[in-house]
């Protein structure tokens, strides 16, 4: 059979399935692949009327402008440290809750699950309101307690050094239910015959957790860890924008790459520089995914994503 003909018949055999995927492919092409072309904005002095291709090149000026300022170090440090905190704290609590939940057998599980999951369904804007009710100066719940003890009220939205704790706490509150459920589902998916066999051999609960539950959960934990490490250069915009209420007093400890790019684009209007920061974020983020996958591959090939 001739080569072109073979190619055509492959397409012919698959064309109906291909057409089923076309709408989604077109969507992705426009909204997720076309923007990749726009990354050249990082090397341009963007002028709205000239467009992406018409605007003049300006080499690495956008990057220089950013990396020379203190902002580069500050937002990189904040982004990485917050993510590291979130990953570790959420993992510990979610795993603990999931294992404890799986040890219970009463109907109360359902109630606990619902309560844990509840904040997950609030938008960050609403969470911003919740935090406001706690932290608003003098009127907030916390300052009310402070006053009760006769302490001076705190201007929470102006004191930067407290925010690492606040944001870690708020993030845990909102996301721990989701992670708990993921691990809980993983535990439920473990074949019960392992536990039965262990029980017959006289294993206790502690032993079963250490030698069955945890080892069998490890692949899931590792996959989630790789994804989280790959995402360490990104952050949940809403958490860092709404919860500190975009208060400029707090930027030293609450500003992350995503909020910085947003402000550079929407408030300052510096398209070139914000594109440069965005490119920096995308490239480092991509390297992090590749790197963490490579490390996992070295340890245990089966757990790697590719």
């Amino acid at each position, binding site marked *: 059979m001739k080569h072109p003909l073979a190619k055509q018949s*492959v*397409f012919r055999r698959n064309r109906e399935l291909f057409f*089923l*995927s076309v*709408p*989604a*492919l077109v969507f992705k092409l426009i*909204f*997720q692949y076309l*923007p*990749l072309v*726009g*990354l050249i*904005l990082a090397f341009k002095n963007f002028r709205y009327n000239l467009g*992406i291709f018409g605007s003049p090149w300006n080499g690495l000026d956008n990057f220089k402008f950013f990396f020379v300022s203190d902002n580069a170090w500050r937002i990189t440090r904040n982004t990485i440290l917050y993510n590291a905190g979130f990953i570790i704290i959420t993992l510990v609590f979610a795993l603990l809750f999931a294992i*404890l*939940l799986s*040890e*219970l057998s009463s109907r*109360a599980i359902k*109630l606990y*699950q*619902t309560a*844990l999951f*509840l*904040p997950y369904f*609030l*938008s*960050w*804007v*609403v969470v*911003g*309101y919740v935090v406001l*009710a*706690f932290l608003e100066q*003098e*009127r*907030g*719940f916390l*300052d*009310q307690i402070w006053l009760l003890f006769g302490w001076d009220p705190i201007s929470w939205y102006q004191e930067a050094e407290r925010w690492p704790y606040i944001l870690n706490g708020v993030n845990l*509150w909102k996301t721990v239910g989701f992670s708990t*459920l*993921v691990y*809980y*589902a*993983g535990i439920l*998916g473990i074949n019960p015959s392992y536990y039965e066999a262990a029980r017959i051999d006289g294993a206790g609960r502690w032993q079963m957790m250490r030698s069955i539950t945890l080892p069998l959960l490890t*692949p899931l934990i590792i996959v989630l860890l790789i994804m989280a490490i*790959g995402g360490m250069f990104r952050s949940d*915009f*809403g958490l860092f924008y709404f919860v500190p209420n975009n208060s400029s007093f707090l930027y030293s400890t609450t500003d992350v790459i995503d909020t910085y790019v947003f402000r550079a*684009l929407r408030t300052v209007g510096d398209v070139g520089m*914000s*594109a440069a920061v*965005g490119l920096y*974020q*995308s490239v480092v*983020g991509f390297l992090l*995914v590749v790197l963490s996958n490579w490390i996992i591959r070295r340890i245990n090939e089966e757990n790697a994503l590719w």
Partner: protein
Amino acid sequence: MRPSLRIVTHLIFVLVTVAMVLPLLLVVMASFSSEDSIIRKGYRLWPEIFSLEGYKIVFQYPGMLLNAYSITVMVTVMGTIISLLLTAMIAYVMARRDYAYRKATSFFVIFTMLFNGGLVPFYILVVKYLHLKDTLWVLILPYLVNPFYVLIMKGFFDRVPIEVVESAKIDGASEYRSFFTIVLPLATPALATVGLFISFVYWNDWWLGLLFIDNNKLVSIQLMLYRTMNSIEFFAANARYMSGQIDVTKFPSLTARMALAVLGAGPMMFIFPFFQRYFVKGLTVGSIKE
């Protein structure tokens, strides 16, 4: 488990439950306080004086709230239907082991999870080239195909027995026909689960509104809440704009703000416990690596 250990475990979860619910209760109670008692005594779990003045003011000028609700509902319904359809179609193709372009399609879908253009090119594309700023579509289109949901959906389709499709083929059915009349009905639970995920994304979204909406008529619930948080005057100004005079100085801004938050987030809080088991199901499938 030993009884004492069980009690301790329950005790831990009771504390956790309180920690999860108490902050929400604080907001609800603030919305039912009188303005005066918040000003004097702050936000409390049990207000000094209960009052409906916050809600009264919100309902006195219902135009903006109703408009925001209708935008949110419209976006959620349209977005969920279209997104679910596109997601299911491409996920099905990726799950078909006999499909020649399966690997390429998967790569095409997953790659943008690992590397993407970020905010700025996306923003310029939507505003300057697609001219979608201040349209209803800009609130719907960008979220249509989420790789994460495609993968969850594919996980479901992996378990649909290929034999049913093959036998339909022998009977002369096209792929389209067997997909829509045989495969989709089999996947109803999957559609429900992923559909729920998607509808939550649309319902809770403020991001697209924050980026692209200036027109007050297109403000969704979440965007309205965001703008109100910064200045309750936004609400007052809009109320005046939509329904005549209002005295801003007498506006019970603190309680009205919390009442708006409750009205905005409330429906989700009541609906979601009923759908929780679908989430558990979806996560179970999504978390199993092939």
